[in-house]
């Protein structure tokens, strides 16, 4: 039996449910030296901004137990270069391309959506809401449901109707389910979660924070249980909304965990730093997991843990 790995993400169908995570796959060229990028579900770009961004000073990354703490700061060449150079190259290699967008105001996000809609070949827009909102003293859009919904609405209105728009959520919010519902209400066709978790490490030699600027975002297997809980909770509340799950996916079994929690697809992020072929390996391992369990369609796993679990209360310690 060869299991059917095709999966629907709302209206959009993917050959298999494994993507790269935004900001963890370079321009695509770096990974293409290790595997054929047309063989994975989709390539997600680094969050693109209207203007070039230099990002944050080094040191930008520190290793933590089973995790990575980073503060790259959206370094990138801006939308022009993406449209002229990176997008055409990705398409020429047969990749399905999701463009992640980030901005400093709803207008900037709207402009990015318009520009991307004029270009051929953008399969989906992912709205990175973990970008500072200068209008609220640099708090991230995602930390205020109304601001987040405004951004999502602006992208949905300005993006071509046939391009699905997914909102990318962060776990560092008080009411994730409410935020998710507000984003869907504002027009999001689906959700991507989770972005990194706020964290910090201090270098014992220099006595300074290990990444410049102090705070960073935690990613990698360390946060997988946090991510799975987020996906589970949101899928329980909004079972019709397609979810791209991420946070510590490293193996096919990890991918399956997200599917069982309610994600329709998964993205592989910092695992690519360790293993540049992680995406194709995860596809292969996921196929093997399905074969071992006699599962014919990967789609049948989506949300399966909700059907076996009792009430998923929150434990008190």
């Amino acid at each position, binding site marked *: 039996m060869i299991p059917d790995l095709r999966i629907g993400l709302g209206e959009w169908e993917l050959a298999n449910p494994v993507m790269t995570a935004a*900001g*963890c*796959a*370079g*321009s695509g*060229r*770096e*990974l293409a*030296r*290790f595997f054929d990028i047309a063989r994975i579900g989709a390539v997600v770009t680094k969050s693109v901004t209207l*203007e*070039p*961004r*230099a*990002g*944050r*000073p*080094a*040191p*930008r*990354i520190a*290793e933590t*137990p*089973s*995790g*990575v703490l*980073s503060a*790259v700061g959206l*370094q*990138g*060449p*801006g939308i*022009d*270069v993406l449209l*002229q*150079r990176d997008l055409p190259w990705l398409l020429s290699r047969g990749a399905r391309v999701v463009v992640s967008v980030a901005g400093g105001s709803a207008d900037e996000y709207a402009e990015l959506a318009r520009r991307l809609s004029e270009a051929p070949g953008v399969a989906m827009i992912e709205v990175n809401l973990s970008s500072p909102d200068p209008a609220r003293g640099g708090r991230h859009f995602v930390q205020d449901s109304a601001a987040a919904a405004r951004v999502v609405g602006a992208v949905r209105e300005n993006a071509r109707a046939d391009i699905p728009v997914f909102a990318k959520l962060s776990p560092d919010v008080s009411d994730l389910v409410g935020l998710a519902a507000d984003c869907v209400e504002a027009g999001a066709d689906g959700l991507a979660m989770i972005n990194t978790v706020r964290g910090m490490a201090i270098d014992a030699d220099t006595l300074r924070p290990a990444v*410049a600027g102090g705070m960073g975002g935690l990613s*990698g*297997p360390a946060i997988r249980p946090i991510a799975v809980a987020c996906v589970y909770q949101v899928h329980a509340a909004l079972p019709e909304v397609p979810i791209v799950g991420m946070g510590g996916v490293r193996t096919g079994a990890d991918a399956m965990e997200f599917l069982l929690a309610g994600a329709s697809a998964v993205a592989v992020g*910092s*695992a*690519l*730093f*360790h*293993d*540049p*072929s992680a995406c194709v390996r995860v596809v292969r391992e996921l196929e093997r997991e399905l074969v071992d369990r006699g599962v014919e369609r990967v789609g049948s796993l989506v949300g399966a843990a909700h059907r076996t679990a009792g009430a998923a209360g929150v434990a008190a310690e």
Partner: protein
Amino acid sequence: MSDVRPVQMSSPVLTVRQVDAYHAITVVAPGIAERFRSGQFVAVAVGGEHSSMLTRRVFAIHEVKPDYGGTVEFLFTVRGRGTAWLAERRSRDLLDVIGPLGRPFPLPRDPVNCVLVGGGAGSAPLFPLAHALRRRGCRVDFVLGAATASRVFSAITARRIAETATFTTDDGSFGTRGRVTDVLDQVIDDACSDVVYACGPMPMLREVTAAAARHGIPIQVSVEETMACGTGVCMSCVVPVVGEDGITRMARACVDGPVFRGERVRFDDVGTIPFDALGAPGWKARASGEDRAREAG
């Protein structure tokens, strides 16, 4: 980004040796050995299958040999968790290695006089470079510095390959007491050097670059910035580098480097985002999208 495709392989450890303050590991890695050009490095996974350490450790390739289809040797000192783990490997263990990575040293077309300047473990990539230069008929002179005698790198090999080999140690326990830059001017003059190659800590590279500028000769430096992936996807290893268009960009040491033209690296601004770098807060959009397309990487 170099156009040689790196490979990822599970490589058996052939030997683990300890030489003075250094550990040397040789792995069987034909695909890496055959593609290698001097200046390139490997990125090694550490801690085993269930490791809590997710980022790769990068090491300059010190030597490749044709044995067993192709072997690769790297040398290292124990600094943190990852190198401590590597130092405990035994022969026949498997290492997950990616390589060769990074932009190699560009080689001169003509048989010119080359001075190779290295500091401590940073000297490793200069040895295959020296061999490659000799094969092209170049004159090679070494200037190797270290903190103390036990940290001087392969003095015997250096003497064997090179026309001259000059050593400096901070404590004077071997060679001249002082730093490489204290002797470099003299070596350049004596050897009529046409080009400088340098490897080592940033402050040393800055000084060596200044010396090359004084002599009006080109210099290629291999920089060492913290790396988490080595393959260009994590964006951790950035260094401010001036492009041909005069614009400073945050270049990735792992794919845009580690070898850069010395005068292009803004050594004084390493660890910062220079205000005038492309996309820095102070940067003004001066150019059209076309120019931006030349962005590093």
